[in-house]
């Protein structure tokens, strides 16, 4: 146990560097190394998860310096859950990228993937606020590379918007950290929590400013309305597998909100319910706007992007209460929406590739593998919209149940249920346009005389150039792998629904650990006899 805790950060850093330095010209070697290291990270995540599930909190003091001075990595149930979720998603989506040939479309795909994982894992593990900023930058700089993977003018333009928005977000993060340091005198999250608890309640102006600034930073990361403007264009233009991995990246913002506002600024601290009061209305608007976007957009990639905005809104509604029931429901929906959102992005990528890169919702001839792709799209849409039997339905039930005690419950229930209907309409419209009506344009097989005279609607490009910025179906390494990995994500949501009972029990324990931050604080600040 002692040194396993740093492995999720060190392993990808080492492997990513090796890939850049030694095997940049050999894609096969990169693929093998990439998958093996992702599997190793998954193995480490499983070990750590097994340790954390006992309810103990593990502290890893870097350089063995004593707590408020040195940087600590922390492992509790929530961090272990996030690590495991990231690792599973990374392996599956990486297999998709290999199977579909996306990783051949540009340089250093697998190396950037590793650095992305390093940043994600570090952000989940760290117990130091400034270190959280550093890991945010690590994951962002890897994501800047991934988001423009494959190139193309639209993707690069979207990339510039994305990077500008996030640079402003990083500046805001530093401002928040400066404010918090000025008012508490520490950057260690546990120490900060202990000091906030001792603050006089009549002198909290600076502290509140810091808390709200921090909330804004995480809201930018999680794409909460009105700070969501970077998301639709970026996700819609990013390569499919990258957008699928980003399903976990927007959850980093949610994770950070949960971590900070249960540990440092809980609702009974001197800043009172400042976070809940801001998050709940924002979440409701985010959900509504996301689902209206799903219905209103005319591009299928953008539809997936709006669905991911809506899912963030949905999971923040119960989380905003920061109580056991709310956290349980929110975390359940977070696991669900990560898997379902990623699956939706992968299916959409498959559809666009088979339509010659045309992502607009308009009538085109029937695509290749239409049966398999439409089944996957149908399942992903069911999961995302929250219909039974997949886990979205149970997630929404848990959320409705958890918000029953809220004074706003009529508003919350109406919003969730009404927006679900909007999403269902949006997805059915897209599905029928993409898969059903397309048969109208197909040449009639029984009537040979017409053949050749009918003007064929829109040609599908014969063969894409290898440097085209979209997936190349004719030339993919293993198309079955792409189908299998998308199916695996959807099977994950089915399993989540089947084992909803045990999973909710497990998440309730996690939520209980979060609502009682005292052991977390003590494990950092006490028990440090052997440190420098």
């Amino acid at each position, binding site marked *: 146990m002692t040194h396993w805790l740093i492995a999720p950060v060190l392993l990808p850093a080492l492997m990513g560097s090796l890939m850049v330095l030694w095997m940049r010209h050999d894609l096969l070697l990169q693929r093998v190394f990439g998958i093996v290291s992702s599997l190793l990270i998954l193995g480490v995540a499983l070990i750590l998860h097994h340790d954390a599930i006992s309810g103990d909190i593990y502290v890893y003091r870097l350089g063995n310096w004593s707590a408020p001075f040195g940087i600590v990595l922390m492992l509790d149930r929530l961090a272990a859950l996030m690590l495991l979720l990231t690792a599973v998603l990374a392996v599956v989506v990486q297999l998709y990228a290999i199977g579909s040939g996306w990783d051949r479309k540009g340089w250093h795909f697998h190396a950037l993937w590793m650095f992305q994982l390093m940043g994600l894992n570090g952000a989940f593990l760290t117990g130091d606020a400034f270190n959280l900023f550093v890991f945010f930058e690590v994951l962002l700089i890897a994501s800047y590379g991934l988001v423009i993977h494959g190139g193309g003018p639209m993707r690069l333009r979207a*990339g510039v918007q994305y*990077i*500008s928005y996030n*640079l402003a977000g990083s500046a805001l993060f530093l401002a928040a950290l400066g404010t918090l340091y*000025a008012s508490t005198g520490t950057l260690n999250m546990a120490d900060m929590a202990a000091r906030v608890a001792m603050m006089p309640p009549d002198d909290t102006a600076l502290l509140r400013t810091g808390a709200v600034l921090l909330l804004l930073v995480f809201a930018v990361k999680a794409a909460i309305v009105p700070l969501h403007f970077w998301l639709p264009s970026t996700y819609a233009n990013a390569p499919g597998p990258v957008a699928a991995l980003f399903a976990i990246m927007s959850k980093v913002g949610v994770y950070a909100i949960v971590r900070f506002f249960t540990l440092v600024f809980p609702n009974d601290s001197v800043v009172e319910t400042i976070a809940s009061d801001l998050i709940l209305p924002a979440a409701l608007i985010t959900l509504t706007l996301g689902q209206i976007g799903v219905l209103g957009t005319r591009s299928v990639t953008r539809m997936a992007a709006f669905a991911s905005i809506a899912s963030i809104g949905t999971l923040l509604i119960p989380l905003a209460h920061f109580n056991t029931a709310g956290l349980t429901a929110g975390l359940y929906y977070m696991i669900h929406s990560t898997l379902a959102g990623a699956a939706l992005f992968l299916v959409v990528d498959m559809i666009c590739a088979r339509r010659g890169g045309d992502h607009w919702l308009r009538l085109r001839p029937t695509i290749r593998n239409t049966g398999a792709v439409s089944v996957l799209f149908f399942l992903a849409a069911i999961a995302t919209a929250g219909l039974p039997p997949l886990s979205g339905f149970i997630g929404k039930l848990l959320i409705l149940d958890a918000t029953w005690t809220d004074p706003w419950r009529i508003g919350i229930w109406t919003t969730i249920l009404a927006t679900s209907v909007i999403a269902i309409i949006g997805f059915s419209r897209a599905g029928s346009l993409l898969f059903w009506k397309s048969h109208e344009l197909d040449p009639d097989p029984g009537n040979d005389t017409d053949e050749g005279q009918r003007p064929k*609607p829109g040609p599908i490009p014969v063969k894409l150039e290898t440097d085209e910025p979209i997936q190349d179906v004719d030339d993919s390494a293993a198309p079955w792998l792409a189908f299998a990995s998308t199916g695996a994500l959807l099977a994950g949501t089915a399993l989540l629904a089947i084992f909803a009972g045990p999973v909710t029990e497990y998440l309730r324990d996690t939520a209980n650990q979060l609502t009682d931050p005292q052991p977390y604080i003590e494990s950092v600040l006490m028990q440090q006899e052997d440190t420098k």
Partner: protein
Amino acid sequence: MEILVASAIGAMMAAAIYLILRLRTFAVILGMTMMTYAINAFLFVSGRLVVNRPPILQGSGEAVDVTMYTDPIPQALVLTAIVIGFGMTAVVVMMSLGAFIEGGDDHINMPQDDREMPPLKTVEDTKKIEEETA
């Protein structure tokens, strides 16, 4: 001195926000750089403003004079922030150049094609394009 530093940070930040809200990448990059300066100065003063004192304790044991000392942590934070900000600026410059070369102009906004459905090309259109290029 507090007023001087605070107004300097405020002025830099205002200029940065003005530049970031421009529609061209060059102005936005300048604004980002300016914003990094403002934030770095802000971080630096978050350990309180003191003049002429080293960021290290002097003397030893009982003789340590804690009044002759300035907080070293913000200085370390600023150093990290400068390095990260510098790297990020380099990335955004490269990315903007790429977008300028591929996209043809340096607008920050996405072109119309990102929002509006372009008309479907028919077989005749593609043939015409192929003939023209050939």
